[in-house]
């Protein structure tokens, strides 16, 4: 086809298009890749311990009391023992000397002995004042001991029948001074038993067992009566490992890792290659989730090191957790180990 020079449109346009196509092929051959960006999400990091460390508070309470206790309307019949006090029952080489925790449930332990003692104490004096009162034919009319006791009316009928017989021999010797002394003896015991603690009466047990009535009030119970709730605890702490225990725990983990870890050959000398790896432990010592390298570096040697460390953790996976650390799972569930060949392999 001869080119007409008056109309050079077609060849010129064809040439331009070919040039355009070539230029596009060159320019678009490597599309720019997007940089990997993960969307940022505002995250508030809360240590899992914190919610546990907050003593049972009530949102409706007005203020946070310095010595918070859970609200209790009456005294609990059975006091619960907290898991952390399990530690105290075990034979441990170095018992953790912790500052007395302000948590309310630990307190009941000291008051307990007196409580047990209390019912015991009033018992011996009880028969005496009563028998005297009855036997003296209400002459002295010592009614003081009677009214403070809530239960006297009930136990009364059985008591006079049984009890008067054994004490009778003593009765003749009765003199006013002794009586006064006995009354004095019984008195101090009574103030001790405050209106909230019931004095022990074995007959009540039967009655309570037989009664089919429902409790009149489903009150919250506690070791002590506390009518006002506190808004959490300002300085409560959960069970924590003390520094020496922490060291022991770390050593125990490293000990087990030393048998699982074989660092890649040739990078032993690297002083800087100490992957710090964080992993989550279950209470039974098994690793849950993916271990995370905390000090990530891009060098291949470091990667190899970190990979070997990860493998070691997975290989060791059910770690043997020494029994004395079991109650502190909160504190060691996130464990971070620095894989330093000198430290772990010795």
């Amino acid at each position, binding site marked *: 086809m001869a080119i007409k020079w008056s109309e050079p*449109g077609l060849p010129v*346009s064809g040439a331009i298009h070919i040039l355009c196509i070539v230029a596009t*092929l060159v320019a678009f051959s490597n599309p720019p890749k997007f940089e990997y960006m993960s969307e940022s999400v505002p995250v508030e990091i809360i240590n899992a311990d914190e919610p546990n460390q907050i003593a049972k508070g009530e949102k409706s309470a007005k203020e946070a009391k310095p010595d918070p206790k859970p609200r209790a309307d009456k005294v609990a019949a059975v006091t619960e023992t907290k898991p952390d006090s399990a530690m105290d029952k075990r034979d441990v080489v170095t018992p953790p000397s912790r500052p007395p925790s302000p948590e309310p449930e630990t307190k009941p332990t000291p008051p307990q002995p007196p409580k047990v003692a209390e019912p015991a104490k009033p018992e011996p004096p009880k028969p005496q004042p009563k028998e005297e009162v009855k036997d003296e034919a209400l002459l002295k009319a010592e009614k003081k001991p009677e009214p403070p006791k809530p239960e006297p009316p009930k136990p009364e009928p059985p008591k006079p029948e049984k009890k008067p017989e054994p004490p009778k021999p003593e009765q003749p010797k009765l003199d006013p001074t002794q009586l006064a002394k006995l009354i004095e003896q019984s008195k101090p015991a009574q103030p001790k038993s405050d209106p909230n603690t019931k004095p022990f009466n074995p007959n009540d047990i039967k009655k309570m067992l037989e009664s089919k009535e429902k409790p009149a009030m489903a009150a919250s119970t506690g070791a002590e009566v506390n009518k006002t709730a506190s808004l959490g605890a300002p300085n409560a702490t959960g069970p924590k490992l003390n520094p020496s225990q922490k060291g022991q725990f770390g050593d125990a983990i490293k000990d087990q890792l030393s048998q699982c870890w074989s660092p890649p050959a040739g990078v032993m000398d690297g002083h800087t290659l100490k992957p710090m790896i964080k992993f989550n432990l279950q209470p039974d010592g098994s690793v849950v989730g993916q271990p995370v390298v905390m000090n990530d570096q891009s060098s291949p040697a470091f990667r190899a090191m970190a990979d070997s460390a990860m493998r070691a953790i997975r290989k060791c996976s059910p770690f043997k957790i020494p029994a004395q650390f079991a109650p502190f799972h909160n504190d060691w569930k996130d464990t971070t180990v620095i894989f330093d060949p000198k430290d772990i392999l010795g």
Partner: protein
Amino acid sequence: MNGTEVVAGALQTASSEISIWTMFWNAHFVVKLVMLGLLASSVWCWSIIIDKELLFRRERRSMDRFEEVFWSGQSLEELYRALSERPNNAMAAVFVAAMNEWKRSVENSGRAVTNLTQRLDKVLDVTIQREVERLESKLLVLATIGSASPFIGLFGTVWGIMNSFRSIAASKNTSLAVVAPGIAEALFATAIGLFAAIPAVIAYNKLQAEAAKQQARVEGFADEFSAILSRQIDERIAAE
């Protein structure tokens, strides 16, 4: 480890699939046809633009020259003799056509002067019509390309997206790396359509305006020339 290799391989092929050529080559047959058609129409459109632009420029220059000569007082006979072989612009063509008619009527018999003015007007009209047609030829192609090629490109895109959605349904994988190449291919058709359409629309408007301007110029000249000729005719009739 094997799994990561497979994934890496898939990513490699996915990233290499984005070059323009593979984009074209992997497209569906219909989309390919659309792309090729649009590319051809773009080539044609540009060839028309170039030809017309050159033609109008030439036309304008030679019209300027013709007008200069025509109004310089040079003998019309001489001018006619110079141009009668090959009139090089619309104005010259009009002039030559009118002179032909004049010569045939006046010189041969000398009798046919009575309706000469009407005949001259007709001849001028026809010549102007023909010349304007010549100037405006192929501009309709530009108009067609400008209005139709976006739709053709859109058709290719819709077809391509339809196909890629069918592939998604078949492979049951909706990850963006799988979906993206098909949609990029499809959109490429629209891109080519717009690439062809935009210059066509702009050039059509510009060239249409240019053609209208030249037509007006030729018509103006034709009116003036027919005025001159009719004066001559009237003088002749008065002389006889």
